[in-house]
């Protein structure tokens, strides 16, 4: 192995890998507030952004952090913040503003056990539904969940790219285990990650419609200080960005911000499968739980049970496509989650009673063990 290659093999922590992904995606503004177990992301950005022409600021709270990244995005930056459950709760109102005003930005949420202060240093996957429904009013969101440290880099790049492409906030959902886990990562060669950008408004300065919501394409977003002057508001607005209460315009706007994401659920779906070809029992999992579930699949196979794993990386928008395709061969689906049953609701909704869906929740602040999932499967689905 050459010396040069060696330099590209690194032992990285999940949180650190997120920050590396952000740098790779051209994030040049970060605002954050300290919170366990996500602070390493902010620390990395504080150390590195000034070296590459970016700016970092520690705000007075999480409300201010997300406000600052939205403001920075409007002024032309690629921006990101990182937090955990309590801080994510505080961010909800402004997250809604970014959804409605269609401002690209990325929130990393390293999930810890809640509710309230909960267990700051223990893992959970309890913010899945908060991510989707936490802010008030109808809206949609994109959320991705990595299972490995390398994926923390990849999916952070995806979050930035999708935020830019669809002009929407995106959420990277880590759990404490993935955020703090260290793995050996071989950095891919330069230029490996593609990142979309929000486009440039046309030359017509007088008729720029920053909030156009017609057809298939998301309007390009100018930036404050650029050639186009424009208005951004958290009030429901018309295509020029000005407040409106005209029912048709309001209706069109709300459908637009939901449909531009929900209608692309299948296109945005990223999955990883393990031994699903011939499986009749499907484990459906994400994040660190999926790593444990994979070990369970092996155990179950040893016992002669034809188990397989569908691991979703795209949490929102939820795509049922793969589940539908697999359903005919299945006699049961088991959904282990470090919560009392959140994404399983989407699985149940998709399957609609055709195949038994069993929830396996864990909320004691501990990771699943392979035995726990294996035993649950054998008890529930031994037929």
């Amino acid at each position, binding site marked *: 192995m050459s010396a040069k290659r060696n330099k590209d093999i690194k032992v990285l922590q999940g949180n650190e890998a997120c920050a*590396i992904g952000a*740098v*790779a995606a*051209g994030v040049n*503004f970060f*605002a954050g507030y300290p919170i366990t177990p996500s602070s390493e992301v902010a620390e990395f950005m504080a*150390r*590195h952004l*000034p*070296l*590459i*022409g970016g*700016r970092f*600021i520690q*705000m*007075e*709270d999480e*409300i*201010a*952090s997300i*406000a*600052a*990244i*939205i*403001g*920075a*995005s*409007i*002024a*032309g*930056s690629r*921006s990101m913040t990182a937090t955990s459950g309590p801080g994510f709760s505080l961010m909800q*109102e*402004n997250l809604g*503003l970014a959804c409605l005003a269609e401002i690209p930005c990325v929130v990393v949420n390293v999930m810890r056990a809640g509710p309230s202060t909960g267990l700051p240093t223990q893992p959970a996957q309890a913010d899945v539904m908060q991510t989707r429904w936490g802010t008030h009013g109808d809206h949609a969101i994109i959320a991705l969940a990595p299972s490995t440290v390398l994926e923390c880099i990849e999916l952070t*790049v995806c979050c930035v790219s999708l935020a830019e492409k669809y002009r929407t906030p995106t959420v990277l959902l880590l759990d404490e285990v993935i955020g703090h886990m260290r793995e050996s990562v071989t*950095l*891919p060669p*330069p*230029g*490996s*990650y*593609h*990142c979309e*950008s929000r486009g440039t408004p046309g030359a017509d300065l007088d008729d720029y419609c920053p909030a156009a919501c017609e057809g298939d394409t998301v309007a390009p977003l100018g*930036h*404050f*200080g*650029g*050639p186009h*002057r*424009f*208005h*951004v*508001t*958290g*009030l429901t607005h018309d295509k*020029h960005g*000005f*407040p409106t209460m005209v029912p048709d315009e309001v209706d069109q706007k709300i459908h637009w911000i939901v449909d531009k994401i929900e209608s692309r659920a299948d296109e945005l779906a990223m999955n990883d499968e393990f031994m699903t070809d011939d499986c009749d029992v499907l484990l459906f999992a994400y994040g660190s739980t999926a790593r444990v579930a994979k070990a369970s699949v092996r155990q179950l196979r040893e016992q002669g049970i034809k188990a397989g794993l569908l691991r979703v990386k795209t949490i929102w928008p939820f795509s049922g496509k793969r589940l539908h395709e697999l359903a005919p061969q299945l006699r049961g689906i088991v959904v282990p989650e470090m919560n009392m049953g959140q994404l399983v609701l989407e699985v149940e909704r998709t399957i609609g009673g055709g195949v038994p869906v069993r929830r396996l929740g864990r909320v004691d602040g501990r990771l699943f063990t392979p035995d726990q999932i294996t035993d649950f499967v054998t008890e529930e689905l031994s037929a």
Partner: protein
Amino acid sequence: MSQAIETARTYLKPHKKLPTVWCGGCGLGVIMSSLLRVISKMEIPKNDIATVSGIGCTGRMPTYVDSNTLHTTHGRALAFATGVKLANPKLTVITAMGDGDALAIGGNHFIHACRRNIDITAIVANNCIYGMTGGQYSPTTPHGKRGTTAPYGNVEHEFDASALAAGAGASFVARTSVYHVRELDKMLEQAIRHRGFSVVEVMSNCYTSYGRLNKYKSPVDMFRWMKESSVTLREAERMSPEELEGKFTRGVFVENYMPEFIEVYDNLAERLTSDSTTVATQLRETVERYERLGDRLKAVG
């Protein structure tokens, strides 16, 4: 007069959004006209201005001003503005907030913005009430005065917004009222020219929600109150605390030249990028390798 029309034509959005949502006789129009006059006099290109607000009657100001405009959530104008300024320091960033917006729900952002000294101008239109929601008492409603949620008179004591800003470290703090229009123009100009965080507290009148509840006969009666109950800094120096009771002081309270946040940050970045020690060089090489993982940066570099 023609000058005023000219200013309005140039700096109001040429859009269907007029007349304003504000009540007749409201002081907010006075503040906005003053702002328009000042940016016109200073000849700041409209594309180089970002006007940012939160929620409330004052929060509607950006809807009319023809610059880049950002109407945010309640209390958060300064936090959004901080991001705007850091992303594009060339912009002249002005926030317009009411007393509830700036000092209650946004109080935390207000004091920290004062402390950080980022080059933003904060206009606090202080009419001592929540106007838009119908007259609930605010953090600046004087003790004993009425609001719809203080039907028997305010039990609490009010903030002195300028003293709060000065205490929190703002490098420019001034106060005047919508009655003292020339002074307002002057202070706004000074504030915008000031390099650092500047606060201009403007005592304003909300006849609709505050005036009627507190026995003022008309908006004009409230202008009279502002004229009669305000004293200049110089006058205040010669007055006893008893004489100053129920009055407010006008003037520039703080004007300090302190290093501005972005200037300091960028100087630091400059030092780091030209640091030739091995540790610094290695750190830069590592982060540049991370940067190049993306195709966007590879394409340009």
